[in-house]
């Protein structure tokens, strides 16, 4: 029974990854498209400016486009239907033998076609309430990323509306309805994963999944024990917010009574309430630890030293391998006691979810630790170009207090995967924390 469940959930995870990979690929296409559209609009803008006349001039009869003066009898010019400006015959473009437009209106029309604006306008007539230019893929990805790293403050309403962009006035309920249905898929997949390893009160169980692949069971156990203080925090919050608790209970109930094999289809039919509460609950709890600890301890130490590592991409297995060799001359995590128990943590940004987090073992009492560990991400190379590797060094203090010791950011945008020199070990200077605003992430994806 257990084995069967596991293989099912394993499949689900694969499915989710597969879909995510497609979505990331789509982002690459979308980015090229956005750049192209920006250029087109810029060109149109410039063309417009060329034709701008000041008010005095427009009293005279001259072509609005080339400024050539127009006569009363010959070359009188004609009014363009699009912009109501009088233009000379040289500044008209015929769409067919009857219809013409002035050069600017024509360019405007071309841009509207080439940028796909025609499509967005048509669509806005039907779905007037959702983000005009946003694609489903982007929306899905954004909500997925939000879901896997939903904010530290649980009882806020789900922030989907922000993602809908373009400053359009949005009807919240409508947009939720849409996001909900698609997001649902991810939710159901995540729930499956969590379900199998979860006992009633074991909120940290999801971590097991994230680290199991990398053989860090022991690490996970340690963490779990030490999380009790955070867990108490959560418990407090929950009792303070009875609504949330009720919702959580409801989710659990639903899960238990469902048969795992038929569960997945039913997941698609969940009511919105269940989905939101469930999503928020798991989302917040699994990210609460790292977010809290990180936020607290950035500025308490100086950042010194270097990290030596090699990065390579294995095309055969679609794996990004980061071999962490050693750090030198680190700052002390606890300056007074001259204590330092460093370890290295990586994220594949913009994904800040636990799925994206990898860690090395903690080295005791040293500022020159030698790790010699390889951290691996399974990711398709086409996705990788939109990512950035964040490698940070932390001190693991008593009571699992974590102190930031420095970080290195490595973008993959222009990474040459074939370049062998990057595959050998390099030293990187550790830097202080760069706080990446959430907006940046939205742009990146």
């Amino acid at each position: 029974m257990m084995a069967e469940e596991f293989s099912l959930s394993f499949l689900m995870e694969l499915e989710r990854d597969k879909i995510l990979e497609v979505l990331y690929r789509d982002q690459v296409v979308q980015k090229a498209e956005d750049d192209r559209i920006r250029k087109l609009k810029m060109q149109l803008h410039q063309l417009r400016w060329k034709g701008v006349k000041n008010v005095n001039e427009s009293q005279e009869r001259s072509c609005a486009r080339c400024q050539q003066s127009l006569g009363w009898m010959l070359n009188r010019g004609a009014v363009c239907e699009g912009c109501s400006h009088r233009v000379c015959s040289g500044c008209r473009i015929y769409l067919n033998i009857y219809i013409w437009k002035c050069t600017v209106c024509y360019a405007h029309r071309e841009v509207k076609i080439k940028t796909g604006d025609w499509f967005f306008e048509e669509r806005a007539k039907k779905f007037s309430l959702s983000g005009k230019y946003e694609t489903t893929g982007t929306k899905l990805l954004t909500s997925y990323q939000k879901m896997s790293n939903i904010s530290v403050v649980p009882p806020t309403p789900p922030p989907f509306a922000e993602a809908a962009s373009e400053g359009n006035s949005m009807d919240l309920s409508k947009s939720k309805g849409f996001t909900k249905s698609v997001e649902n898929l991810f939710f159901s997949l995540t729930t499956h994963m969590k379900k199998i390893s979860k006992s009633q009160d074991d909120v940290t169980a999801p971590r097991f999944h994230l680290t199991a692949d990398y053989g860090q069971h022991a690490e996970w156990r340690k963490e779990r024990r030490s999380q009790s203080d955070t867990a108490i925090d959560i418990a407090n919050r929950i009792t303070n917010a009875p609504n949330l608790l009720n919702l959580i209970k409801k989710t659990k109930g639903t899960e238990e009574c469902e048969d795992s094999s038929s569960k997945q289809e039913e997941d698609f039919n969940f009511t919105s309430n269940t989905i939101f509460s469930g999503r928020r609950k798991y989302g917040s709890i699994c990210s609460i630890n790292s977010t809290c600890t990180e936020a607290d301890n950035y500025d308490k130490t100086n950042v010194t030293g270097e990290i030596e590592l090699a990065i390579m991409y294995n095309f055969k297995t679609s794996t990004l391998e980061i071999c962490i060799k050693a750090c030198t001359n680190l700052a002390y995590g606890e300056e007074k006691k001259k204590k330092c128990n460093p370890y290295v943590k990586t994220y594949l940004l913009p994904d800040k979810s636990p799925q994206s987090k990898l860690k090395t073992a903690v080295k005791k009492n040293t500022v020159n630790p030698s790790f010699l560990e390889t951290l691996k991400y399974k990711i398709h190379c086409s996705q990788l170009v939109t990512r950035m590797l964040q490698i940070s060094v932390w001190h693991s203090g008593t009571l699992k207090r974590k102190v930031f010791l420095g970080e290195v950011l490595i973008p993959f945008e222009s990474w040459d995967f074939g370049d062998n020199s990057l595959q050998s070990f390099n030293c990187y200077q550790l830097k202080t924390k760069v706080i990446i605003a959430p907006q940046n992430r939205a742009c990146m994806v």
Partner: protein
Amino acid sequence: MTDGDYDYLIKLLALGDSGVGKTTFLYRYTDRIFNPKFITTVGIDFREKRVVYNNTGPNGSPGKTFKVHLQLWDTAGQERFRSLTTAFFRDAMGFLLMFDLTSQQSFLNVRNWMSQLQANAYCENPDIVLIGNKADLSDQREVNERQAKDLADKYGIPYFETSAATGQNVEKTVDMLLDLIMKRMEQCVDKTQVSETVNGAASGKLDPVKPEEKKCAC
């Protein structure tokens, strides 16, 4: 493939029952290869192809050529992915609605797919091409051409019988859809400047734009 050196990004989407050959059809179209293996599509996928579109001018005059970047979305036919796949309908400019000529059921479901499209596509009457795939398996055929043609006529959409195995009509079908979309684009931008006429939802195509009167003064 992902540089911005093209004039149009056209997003098409293939839909239809599971196993009718959507993935194989698209694979045939983009790579000119037939892959007989059945690997069910997980949720959603897409393929890309850069084509050159030759726009014949309004009066058959020699037109311009454009580089078109096609993003061909492939969807899972399986019911369990339905809510995901239909969410992608709204981003597509044209649709390849496919059924299997050797499966009566997949043909009967075309009606359902049409209503899914009406609900989820960017407008009530998007550009659609009806495709009867697996035309090469003539001995297993369950849907005759007349039946399919009648249905397509009812919706006012073109119908093609294709074979991803032999390549029969594959390119022609996509070209046809591309053609419809290119025309639609022009109509959309010109229409909005003339009048905002709403077209009947039953017809698959817009009515041709009425030739406007010539404005004088020239």
